[in-house]
C-alpha cells in the first residue's frame, strides 16, 4: 500500500494483508540498493499470523518517491515518520545489512517505539572498502556486481535456492540493477559513515536478535562481536554455509529465527 511520508508517495508491502487497528506492527527495512521484495516470504508469513507488516521501500528505492537519505540516522528518523503515517505506535523492527543499521538506530533513539529488534547480516561499524565505494560513486556496473558477489557465500554461487527454480545470483543482481543512479553509493556511504553505533548500542533496551551468516564476506561475524556483547538482552542465530544475503540464501532459517521473537 502507499502512504504519505514527508509529502512523498511511499510504498509499504503488507504481506498481502490489510492492517488491523491495534495489532502489533512488524517493520522490515531492506539493505543497500534493494527494496521490499527481499522480505516477501517473511512478510506474508507474519501477516498471516496477525501482525501489521510494514516492509518499507526507503525514499528513492523500489516504489517510493523522494530523494535518498544520506545517513543512517536520517533513514531512522524517516522510518519513525512512516510508522506514524501508518498509525503504528509500537513495532518489532527487522533490518538486513544497511537496513539493520537503520533498525538499530531507531531502537537506540526511539526505544518506546520498539518491542523487539532483529538485525540480519550485520556488523557495527560497517566499513566499505575504497574499491567498492569508488566504483559506486562513479555508478559503475561493477559496484553492483561486487555487492552481489560478496553478498553470497561461496556455496550460494553455485545455487541451491530454498525457493524452487530461483537462481539467487541472478535475482539479486536484477534487483540491484533496478536501483536508480546514485542509490548504491548513497547507501554504501551511509553504512560506512555510521561510526557511532558501538557507543549507541548501550542505549538499546529492546531484546535483540542477531541472525548472522557464518560465511558472510560483507559483514564478517567477527565484526558483530562487540555489538552483540554490548546489548544486554541479545541472542544470536548463526547460520552455517550462509553468506550476507541471508534474505536470499536462508529465508526459511531466517523465518524460524524471527518466529522466536513474535
Amino acid at each position, binding site marked *: 500500500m502507499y502512504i504519505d511520508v514527508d509529502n512523498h508517495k511511499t510504498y509499504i*508491502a503488507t504481506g*498481502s494483508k490489510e492492517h488491523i487497528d491495534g495489532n502489533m506492527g512488524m517493520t522490515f527495512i531492506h539493505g543497500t540498493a534493494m*527494496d521490499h*521484495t527481499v522480505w*516477501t*516470504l*517473511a512478510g*506474508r*508469513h507474519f501477516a*498471516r499470523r496477525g501482525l501489521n507488516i510494514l516492509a518499507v521501500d526507503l525514499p528513492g528505492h*523500489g516504489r517510493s518517491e523522494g530523494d535518498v537519505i544520506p545517513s543512517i540516522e536520517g533513514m531512522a528518523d524517516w522510518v519513525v515518520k512512516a510508522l506514524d503515517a501508518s498509525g503504528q505506535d509500537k513495532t518489532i523492527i527487522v533490518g538486513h545489512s544497511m537496513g539493520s543499521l537503520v533498525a538499530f538506530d531507531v531502537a537506540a533513539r526511539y526505544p518506546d517505539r520498539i518491542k523487539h529488534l532483529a538485525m540480519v547480516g550485520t556488523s557495527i561499524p560497517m566499513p566499505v572498502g575504497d*574499491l567498492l565505494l569508488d*566504483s559506486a560513486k562513479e555508478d559503475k556496473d*561493477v559496484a553492483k*556486481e*561486487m555487492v*552481489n*558477489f560478496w553478498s553470497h557465500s561461496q*556455496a550460494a*554461487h*553455485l*545455487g*541451491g*535456492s*530454498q*525457493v*524452487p*527454480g*530461483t*537462481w539467487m*545470483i*541472478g*535475482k539479486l543482481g*536484477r*534487483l540491484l*540493477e*533496478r536501483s536508480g543512479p546514485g542509490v548504491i553509493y548513497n547507501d554504501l556511504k551511509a553504512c560506512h559513515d555510521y561510526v557511532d553505533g558501538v557507543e549507541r548500542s548501550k542505549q538499546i533496551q529492546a531484546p535483540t536478535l542477531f541472525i548472522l551468516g557464518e560465511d558472510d564476506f560483507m559483514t564478517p561475524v567477527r565484526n558483530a562481536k562487540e555489538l552483540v556483547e554490548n546489548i544486554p538482552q541479545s541472542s544470536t542465530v548463526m547460520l552455517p554455509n550462509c553468506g550476507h544475503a541471508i534474505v536470499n540464501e536462508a*529465508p*526459511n532459517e531466517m*523465518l524460524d529465527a524471527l518466529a522466536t521473537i513474535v
Partner: protein
Amino acid sequence: MAKVKTFDFDTLSNHAGQRPDKETGSRAVPIYQTASYVFRDSDAGAAMFNIERGGHVYSRISNPTTAVLEERISALEGGVGAVATSSGQAAVFNAIATLVDQGGHIVSSYALYGGTHNLMEYTLPRFGITTTFVDPNDIEGFKKAIKPETRLIFGETVANPKTEVLNIPEVAKIAHDNHIPLVVDSTTTTPYLIKPFDLGADIVVHSATKFLSGHGTSMAGLIVDGGVFDWESTDKFPQMTEKYEGFHNLSFTEEFGPAAFISRVRNEAARDFGACLAPHSSFLVLNGTETLSVRMDKHISNTNKVVDYLNGHDMVEWVSHPNLKDHPNHDLAKELLPKGSTAVFSFGIKGGREIGQVFIDRLDLFSNLANIGDAKSLVIHPASTTHQRMTVEALEEAGISEGLIRLSIGIESVDDLIEDLEKGFRTASKALKK
C-alpha cells in the same frame, strides 16, 4: 578496472543448482521420485501453500530434482529463475498463456518449428489468441505487425529447419518500444552458443529434449525469466501487475519484483495446466547439461565439415547454413553466435521429394526420425513429417521445399558421417538417372 570473477560456464553446467545431499552425500543429483512432501507441522504446511517458506509441496508445482535443473539452466542463461515443463511445446504454451489473454495477439517470426507454428496458427485461435507471422529478416515487418492487443514477439534464435538467425537486439528494441517482451526459443542454440538475455530478449524457452539433454532420452522443456522486463511500464499485463484472485489477491510485480513473470508461471501455469516434468527426466537432462559445452563444440566442428562437404556436392542444389557466405544471416551469425550457429540445418537434394526419400533410406548412421539435438546424427524430410500440416503457401513462406532435407549433426566421427552421406548420394544419383 575491477572485475568480478564468477564461476565459468563449464563449472555452472556441472554444479549449478545442486548442493551435495546432506544425508547421503550423493554427488549425483538424487532422483526425488515423489509426488508430495511431508509438512514439518500444520503451520509449516499453511506457510508453504501461502508462499511464506521455500520448499516443495507437490511435484506438479516443484520437485527437488527438477528444481536443480531449473536453477542450472537459469544460471547458464543468466536469468532469475526457471520453470521446467513436460516438453518444449509445453514451455512455449505456458509462456504464451501466462502473458496473453483471450483477444490477445502475437507477432512471430514465420521461421518456426512446425509444432510451434501449428499451435499459433490453428490451436491458439480457438482460445481467441491470434498470430501474425513475419519474415524474420524483415525487421520493419515486426514493427508493422504490432497491434494494440499484441502482447509478445516470438522467434527462434536460429530457426529450425532453415537456419534463419533472429536479430535479437533489433527485434528486442521493437518489442520494448511497444512495451512488450521478446520471447525466444533457444532450443537449437542452447546457452552455450548464445545468451539471449545479454542481447535483449526477455524470456527464453527451450525444448530440453534436444541439445540440453543431448541423448534423445527424455521429453523436457524450460521457461527462463531474464528478470529485466518492466511489466509496470504498461497496462498490458494486468496478470502481472494487478491483484490475482486465483492466489488471494497476490500481485506478482509487487511481491516478486524481478522474478514476477517466473513466479506467475509457477503459481498459475504449472499449477493449473499441469505440464510438469518427471523427476527422472530432469535427472537425465541434468546429466546432459554436464557435457553441454563439450558436445556443442563437437556438434559444431562436425557441422562445419559436413556443411563444406555438402556445399560442393553435385547432388546438392543448395545448403542453408549461416556458415556460408551466401546465407542472408552470415554476418549476423558471426556477430551473435561467435562459437558457431547451429548443428541443425537443411539442404536441397536434386530430384525433390522422391529422390530425397531414396537418399534418406540409404543412410545408416543418420537416423530418420523426428528429433534434433541428439548425440547421434539425425535426418528427416520436413515437408512430409514435422511440417506436414502447413499449407503449401505456408511451407513456401517458411522456405520449406519438397526437396528439403534436414540434418541434425551428431558427435560421431565426422569422416564416418560424410562417408554415410556419400553412400546416400551415390544411391540417389543412380535413382535420379533412371
